């Protein structure tokens, strides 16, 4: 008597075998892929160039996420060449006929070889993105990673591998791999050139992003363009892989038919992506695709300000700029300390609500009751490729002077602006303002022209008259408490124009 086990359906067995065989084929391809041998050199190249460049930027999630997408250019170029080289492997080794006798269609073998290149490339790109995001997570003080640019970058790398593989398989030759590499490095530039000629479809290029100044910090990232790029890239991948199945040697009629369908679907996707990219509009908040955009998407990003409460009055900034808060406090607090407690002194320093105008300009103003000192968000907008130090240090130096002017004007009156004032009253206001400027390390009498207005702190401009200059020097020479006490007692009279230069101690 023989024991008979439970019957296993034939279909299940076949599927299991298929999965197992496919898995083995994939493992073999992963093991012998040229990309595996090149991972370390390409990773070193990436670290030496793109990574260094990316991490040299200010630690803002918005900026660093977007640059990750542009890095696909380097990886994509090399991956395309390696894929083309891999595709011609069987022909190079003169084993095409030998492999034609195997059970699997040539297309399946090619797909496995391509998949191995794509997997290693994605691993490389993923590791690069991971390094950028981990380092940024340790440095950034606000926000979270934006995955859209990384998704576009990863898909673009896969598309480069697919197109490179298709070229290598369909046009094999010694020069195919370098030609494909150069083509892959040039292709994204076509979009840039099209944009220079005002052709909006050029935004389909994977090195283009929808961001603008302040994206990811003050204004939201509009993912419409990323979606369109993904549609286009998926189409390119489908078309390239489908093209591999079209030649008669790729397999039977079924494979050929699948290839034609894949090419048709891929071309349709790519054409849709191009058409949608052609509808792109440049707005103050970046590039938007009307089909993927609603008015609600334009709301500025809400945030809880981060404040320095040890300053004379709370000075608050966007939390993404926590690192520069001490510099801003150093720039503004000295003048606030000089006029603390006087009528008109700001009770708080904060960023103005985000507006389109505010993002473009660097204005500041003191307004409201109680008075609030508003800094424009535009002061803190960084250009791509800049660090906090390179971009914001000059801005903060200028802020020191502009803030002093704005606060002094608000507290003691706008010197010389009131037509009803006597020249003597204007002279008193000018002398006191000059004295305060001297104390906080600014030029006492900033020149009228823009060049001299940015003179170094402490540099003396020309006084309107020797008497005003002498009064300013006297006032600056007072002790801090004496100066403050005098201001508290006399600020109303100064504003009303009731004092003379001789009254300044």
């Amino acid at each position, binding site marked *: 008597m023989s024991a008979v086990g439970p019957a296993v359906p034939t279909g299940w067995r076949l599927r299991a075998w298929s999965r197992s065989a496919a898995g083995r084929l994939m493992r073999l391809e992963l093991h012998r892929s040229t990309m595996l041998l090149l991972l370390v*050199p390409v990773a070193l190249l990436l670290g*030496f160039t793109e990574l260094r460049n990316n991490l040299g930027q200010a630690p803002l999630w918005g900026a660093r996420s977007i640059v990750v997408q542009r890095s696909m250019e*380097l990886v994509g170029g090399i991956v395309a060449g390696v894929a083309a080289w891999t595709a011609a*492997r069987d022909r190079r080794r003169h084993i095409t006929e030998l492999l034609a006798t195997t059970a699997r269609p040539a297309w399946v073998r090619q797909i496995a070889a391509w998949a191995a290149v794509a997997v290693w490339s994605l691993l490389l790109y993923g590791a690069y993105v991971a390094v950028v995001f981990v380092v940024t997570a340790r440095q950034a003080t606000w926000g979270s990673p934006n995955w859209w640019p990384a998704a576009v970058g990863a898909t673009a790398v896969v598309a480069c591998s697919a197109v490179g593989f298709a070229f290598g398989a369909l046009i094999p030759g010694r020069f195919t791999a*370098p030609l494909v590499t150069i083509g892959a490095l*040039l292709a994204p530039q076509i979009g840039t050139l099209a944009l220079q000629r005002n052709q909006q479809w050029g935004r389909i290029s994977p090195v283009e992003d929808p961001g603008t100044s302040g994206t990811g910090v003050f204004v939201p990232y509009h993912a419409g363009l990323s979606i369109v790029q993904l549609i286009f890239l998926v189409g390119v991948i489908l078309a390239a892989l489908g093209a591999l199945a079209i030649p008669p040697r790729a397999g039977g009629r079924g494979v050929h038919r699948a290839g034609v369908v894949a090419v048709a679907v891929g071309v349709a996707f790519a054409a849709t992506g191009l058409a949608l990219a052609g509808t792109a509009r440049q707005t103050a908040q970046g590039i938007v695709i009307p089909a993927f955009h609603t008015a609600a998407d334009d709301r500025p990003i809400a945030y809880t300000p981060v404040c320095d409460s040890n300053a004379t009055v709370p000075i608050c900034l966007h939390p993404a700029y926590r690192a520069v808060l001490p510099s801003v406090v150093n720039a503004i607090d000295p003048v606030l300390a000089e006029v603390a407690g006087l009528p008109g002194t700001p009770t708080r320093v904060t960023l103005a609500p985000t507006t389109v105008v505010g993002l473009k300009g660097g204005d500041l103003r003191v307004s409201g009751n109680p008075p609030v000192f508003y800094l424009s968000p535009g002061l803190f907008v960084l250009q791509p490729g800049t660090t906090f130090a390179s971009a914001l240090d000059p801005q903060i130096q200028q802020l020191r002077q502009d803030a002093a002017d704005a606060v002094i004007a608000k507290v003691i009156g706008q010197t010389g602006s009131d037509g009803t004032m006597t020249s003597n009253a204007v002279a008193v206001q000018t002398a006191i303002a000059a004295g305060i400027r001297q104390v906080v390390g600014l030029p006492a009498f900033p020149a009228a022209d823009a060049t001299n207005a940015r003179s170094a702190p402490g540099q003396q401009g020309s006084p309107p008259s020797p008497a005003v200059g002498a009064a300013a020097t006297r006032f600056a020479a007072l002790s801090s408490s004496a100066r403050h006490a005098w201001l508290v007692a006399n600020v109303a009279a100064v504003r009303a124009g009731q004092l003379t230069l001789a009254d300044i101690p």
Partner: protein
Amino acid sequence: MIAIGAATRPRLALPTARLARLHAAGRGIPRGLAMLVLCAVGLRIVLAWATPGSDGARPLPLLFEALAASVVGIVFRSPFGEVERVTGRWLPVLRFAAVPALTAAAFGALAAGSAGARLDLGYAGLARDLIGLVGLSLATATVIGALLCWLGPVAFWLVSLYAIGSHWTTPWVWTAHLPSDTGAWLCAVAVLVVGTILVATFGARDGLHE
């Protein structure tokens, strides 16, 4: 018993024109020259886009110089393998002679391609960059393999982009310097000399799962 005298080795004559022609044909040099013409056409097209002073004025022509250098490296691949290595006594000489000839052909093609347009660093810059890139391509062909020698020039092109943008001062990235920089010239020539010696002595390798 018959005494056999020492076999006299045939005297080596200088390679004849026929041998040189066969060597060129075996390496597919005519097709390589056709590729160089294609590089020149590509350069002419990008020079129409990348006008002087624009962002692409330096990197895009340099990309075609890298491609031309890769072509020079690729034609050093031998289709005959060990048979030729064992029997071809004049191979080092032929390979040595092929380097300047192909480099000059590449320069001529690219110079012709850029005629009528303006190269950012002029013909002197083109010559220096190409010389160094060819050396790099030949060295890569010897170390990794002729068919993958394009990895060297392409990687160097990518490094050059950052060197140009970041104003690197090392002369080893010669592409980031003006043609008047002697140090950059010396480095480019040194790389060509090393590449030539390597490829002439050892030949291009059939590497990486050839």
